């Protein structure tokens, strides 16, 4: 256990010093804010068109929720790829540079160094969630209205109800991020080159993204179906419609159950595979 903690401490120090993570978080925040701002521009253009056509607008509020959700999940889609890249490089790049050999001979076991990296990823995931969420929320709050979701005087959902729905959806997405990182770690531990690890992991992940619609219900047995991505089928994607009043059906209990259990179990499987691969592959 002390080996895990020592490695965790050292890796956190390394992350802080390399600044890569800091800049990545800034990038994600900018993506979230930019997506919200783009929605604002789109709304402004639509509004001008509607006024020109003398269309009448009823009582509208809660306009911030839709752009907020879209801004957040767009940034989280980018975060998915960045986390996957970080995971795939972590072990393979250290193996290439020889750092792993030094670590494994002087300080910690192979298993400890893999587990420490997995634990560190939880911090990265929470940081990515927090930064993108705050950036999208602040920008949406500045440009739109965060009240109850009302259109033409009809209240679809109160602000409190929307917050609960969004928090639930966000929690449902978290295990999928952990599984994505663990998948990247397993690939990284099994390969000698960071480039190969990145290519393999991205190819598999993006290929699944392209084919998951064709898989229908079967996709729900794969962790990647629950993480925000380009072809987004995550819980946050469903929230996009809810936040605009297009749908008042929240996440189904079955979907919630699967999004919590499937990625969590698969994350553990990938972690075990990563530990085995690290043992077999050597430094």
């Amino acid at each position, binding site marked *: 256990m002390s080996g895990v903690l020592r490695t965790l401490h050292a890796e956190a120090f*390394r992350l802080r010093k390399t600044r890569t993570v800091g800049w990545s978080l800034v990038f994600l925040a900018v993506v979230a804010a930019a997506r919200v701002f783009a929605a604002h521009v789109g709304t402004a253009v639509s509004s001008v068109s509607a006024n020109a056509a003398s269309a009448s607008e009823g009582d509208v509020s809660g306009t911030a929720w839709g752009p907020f959700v879209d801004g957040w999940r767009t940034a989280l889609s980018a975060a998915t790829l960045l986390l996957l890249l970080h995971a795939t490089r972590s072990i393979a790049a250290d193996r290439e540079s*020889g*750092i792993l050999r*030094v670590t494994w*001979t*002087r300080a910690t*076991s192979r298993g400890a160094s893999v587990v420490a990296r997995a634990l560190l990823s939880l911090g990265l995931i929470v940081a990515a969630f927090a930064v993108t969420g705050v950036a999208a929320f602040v920008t949406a709050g500045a440009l739109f209205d965060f009240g109850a979701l009302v259109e033409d005087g009809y209240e679809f959902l109160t602000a409190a109800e929307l917050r609960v729905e969004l928090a639930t959806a966000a929690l449902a997405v978290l295990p999928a991020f952990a599984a994505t990182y663990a998948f990247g770690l397993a690939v990284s531990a099994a390969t000698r080159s960071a480039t190969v690890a990145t290519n393999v992991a991205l190819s598999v992940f993006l290929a699944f993204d392209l084919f998951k619609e064709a898989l229908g219900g079967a996709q729900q047995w794969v962790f990647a179906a629950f993480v925000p991505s380009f072809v987004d089928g995550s819980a946050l994607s469903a929230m996009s419609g809810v936040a605009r009043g297009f749908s008042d059906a929240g996440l189904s209990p079955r979907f919630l159950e699967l999004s919590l259990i499937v990625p969590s179990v698969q994350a553990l499987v990938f972690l075990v595979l990563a530990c085995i691969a690290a043992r077999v592959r*050597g430094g």
Partner: protein
Amino acid sequence: MLANGPVLEIDSLAKRYGRTDALRDVSFVVGSGEIHGLLGPNGSGKTTTLACALGLERPTRGSVRILGLPAARVHETNGAVGVVFDGASLLGGLTVRDNLEYARLLLGHGGGRTADEVMALVGVERLATRRAGRLSLGQKKRVAVARALLGKPALLILDEPLSALDTQGVDAMLRLIRTLANEGVTVVLSSHRLVEMERVITHATILAEGRVRGTGTLDALFASAPMTVELRVTRAAIAERVIASHGTLLSVTAPVDGDAATLVARLTDAGDAASVATRDAALAKLNRALLEAGCEVAGLIPARRDLLALFHSLVSADEAAPGRAREASEVHA
């Protein structure tokens, strides 16, 4: 100290990659306080031996104990084994000081040497704020040595410590190795630079083609090696036949003056080459045989007892062809 016995014990180690035998039945022991050279040409199995000794490669056969532990548990020595690999293995994006702090955090040591102390010991203080990725190879090597000294190691393993170092760097490195040995650190170092190694090592294991050709103290190795002599003779063809009955011909230069030639031979009947009487008797016997065969002997010079000559004699022991001798000499390159 985790063990009172040998610091490193390698027993019947074999390692096979596909169809290639990288190591064949390698056995040697490193005792406490030694400066032990693992010597051999490129591809002789030095790095593979060290990788197996450090648990980084799983041997096909044989066993390794390092500070009393199996190789796979070397990390449990808690920093008592310091390692420098050939490639230096630094985090290029971090400064030198941060590289050392990272390693110190991994070790989790409150005690032991600090980053500043090891930088001072190795003489890289002025590089403290430089990014490791921007250092020269020689500078990287010294920083890697500094990192290996964190946590006060009892055993220091250096893979090709002199590669990429200039003359001054080599001198500084050899001085540092001697200083550490004087402080009680056991040092194992692999190298193909025999001349420099001879200045510092007390013991050696000589590897060639994955086999141990000799191991022990330098004095014992010198004593056990067959004597090599250089002869300048006329009637070279006859001399070659005479030599064949006394030992093994290692090389023949092209005759420059009629039938004269310079021959290098290893005398198999010289016995213990460290014994002056035996050596002189063997030389006299060869000289007499050459004269009786009608050769004029202009020179009969025993080879100097140095590591390079020792290496020649041990490595080419099984292969007598002049070509093999030439290959062995390249270890010095």
